[in-house]
């Protein structure tokens, strides 16, 4: 019996190895996504073009200008005239303009003596891209107000991700997505392919038990996903400097549970889909899109309308991503994610139960 099983695994591995292009894609997708999200795409605002309008370039104004020049988030374009504000913004040459009151120095000294004064600085922002404007305004405010040290009333303290690196946000999300993609989509397509070609029928007439045929299909994809997991963790740790302070053991354990869950999902899809195209569509449209939308990877779950709020509870990726965030970014111990682990294990068994029942019914 053992020999039968191993000859099946050999066969499945050969199918995958023969299809070099698909295998390369599967192995490279995580690397590309990680690099893309880690370096190229980011929600951080860099190189914001800032100009200053000031009637006299006093010491205190120059101090602000120096600060801007030294800050990597801004590029200081110099001083411009009041009349140029509109043109510069329209042409897109500047993203933000800081206007100092002509009595800036006087107001500053009055304020330091405790006199209540009207605002002395104005920010003008190009808000056609709200993301840049919002984040940029927050940065700018920080830089300027840190200069006015005596008035500092508000103390902002960002926990876990003090530099607000977007990689920290995307790495767990990508992990949640990649494993569904590879395990669920690839397994379901490969089972449905045999159904389509007619080879599954031959296997079913053979003395091999159907459950073994299915298991053998999963083993190679499981191994590939483990390779991907290793690549992702290595890139995250050494290229993107994600802390992983919660310990590797926990991250790997919960990832493996999630891998198995994805495999079961793939099996479930394969019992429903009658052709490869349908299997692909189901995994892409029905699984991936809602997963991206509802897992908290891109949009915060808290922002969903009340009607949709219960939905994320049934999306496995949401629990996984949440757990990975806790372990990777917040550095909590494994005991902090027991709830997520429990839910994922429960979901795995639920999917497995439905899939196996469907699979049996189909055979009859």
């Amino acid at each position, binding site marked *: *019996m053992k*020999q*039968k099983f*191993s*000859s*099946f695994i*050999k*066969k499945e591995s*050969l*199918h995958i190895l*023969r*299809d070099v292009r698909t295998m390369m894609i599967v192995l490279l997708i995580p690397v590309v996504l990680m690099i893309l999200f880690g370096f190229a795409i980011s929600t951080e605002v860099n190189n914001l073009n800032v100009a200053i309008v000031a009637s006299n370039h006093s010491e205190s104004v120059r101090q602000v200008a120096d600060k801007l020049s030294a800050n990597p988030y801004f590029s200081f374009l110099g001083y411009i005239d009041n009349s140029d504000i509109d043109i510069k913004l329209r042409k897109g040459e500047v993203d933000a303009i800081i206007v100092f009151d002509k009595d800036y120095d006087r107001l500053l000294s009055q304020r330091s003596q405790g006199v209540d004064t009207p605002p002395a600085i104005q920010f003008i922002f190009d808000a056609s891209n709200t993301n840049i404007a919002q984040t940029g305004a927050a940065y700018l405010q920080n830089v300027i107000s840190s200069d006015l040290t005596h008035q500092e009333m508000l103390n902002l303290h960002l926990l876990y991700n003090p530099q607000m690196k977007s990689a920290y946000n995307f790495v767990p999300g990508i992990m949640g997505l990649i494993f569904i993609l590879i395990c669920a989509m690839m397994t379901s397509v490969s089972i449905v392919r045999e159904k389509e*070609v*007619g*080879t599954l*029928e*031959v*296997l*079913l*007439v*053979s*003395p*091999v038990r159907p459950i073994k045929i299915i298991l053998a299909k999963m083993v190679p994809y499981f191994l590939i996903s483990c390779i991907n997991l290793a690549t992702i963790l290595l890139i995250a740790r050494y290229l993107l400097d994600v802390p992983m302070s919660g310990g590797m053991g926990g991250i790997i354990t919960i990832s493996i549970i999630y891998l198995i869950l994805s495999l079961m999902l793939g099996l479930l899809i394969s019992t429903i889909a009658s052709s490869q195209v349908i299997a692909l569509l189901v995994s892409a449209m029905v699984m991936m899109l809602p997963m991206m939308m509802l897992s908290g990877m891109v949009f915060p779950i808290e922002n969903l309308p009340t009607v949709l709020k219960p939905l994320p509870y049934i999306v496995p990726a949401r629990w996984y991503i949440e757990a990975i965030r806790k372990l990777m970014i917040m550095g909590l111990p494994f005991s902090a994610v027991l709830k997520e682990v429990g839910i994922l294990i429960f979901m795995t068994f639920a999917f497995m139960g439905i899939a196996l029942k469907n699979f049996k019914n189909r*055979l*009859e």
Partner: protein
Amino acid sequence: MNNTVISVKGLTKRFGDFTAVNCISFDVKRGEIFGFLGANGAGKTTAMRMLCGLSYPTSGSGTVVGFDVTREGEKIKRHIGYMSQRFSLYNDLTVWENIRLFAGIYGLSKAETIERANEILARLDITSERDTLVGSLPLGWKQKLSFAVATIHRPELVFLDEPTGGVDPITRRQFWEMIYEAADNGTSIFVTTHYMDEAEYCSRVSIMVDGEVRAIDTPTRLKEQFAAESMDEVFRILARGAKRGD
């Protein structure tokens, strides 16, 4: 040793209200080439699935290679060969890998596998194609290889489900030579086909209409009985009364 490989009595399969196979009874003897004919939808496939141990009969009883169709499906599977109309080898695996896979499925040992593989390669004269992907072989070769692989464990009985569908006449001819050879060596063949000229090659044929076996005999006697020139005519006379099918 028992001389009957298939013996069924009153085999019936219902799906809800629909009776796909209605109370069929027949025997197939060792070394016989048994043609199982019928129009599409006549219930051929359902009947065959029951005989292969893939589906349980609603009522009736029978044995295939000595095992009960209702209780010993798994044992039946181990002792029969099966080749379907749709090509049953893996195109992205080589000739050798395909042979090794099916040898593994039927539990052949390493030594047996190598011995049987060499034998197949020599018999089909494709030793030089050992490491060729099956997908790039000509259809005729694939067909023969497919049959050889289906009988790699030397089963007493082989089910062929429309094995020559979409194949040119010359290849079909060569394929039937292979079937004869296997039958001469004592393997029983249970074959379904659409081609009535192939029915003439069988030792005995049964014709199914509307889920029932309407006629069963040697091609010669069937032609006499229906005063027909060919099996094609016999089939048309019987199929005329069909209520379902296409």
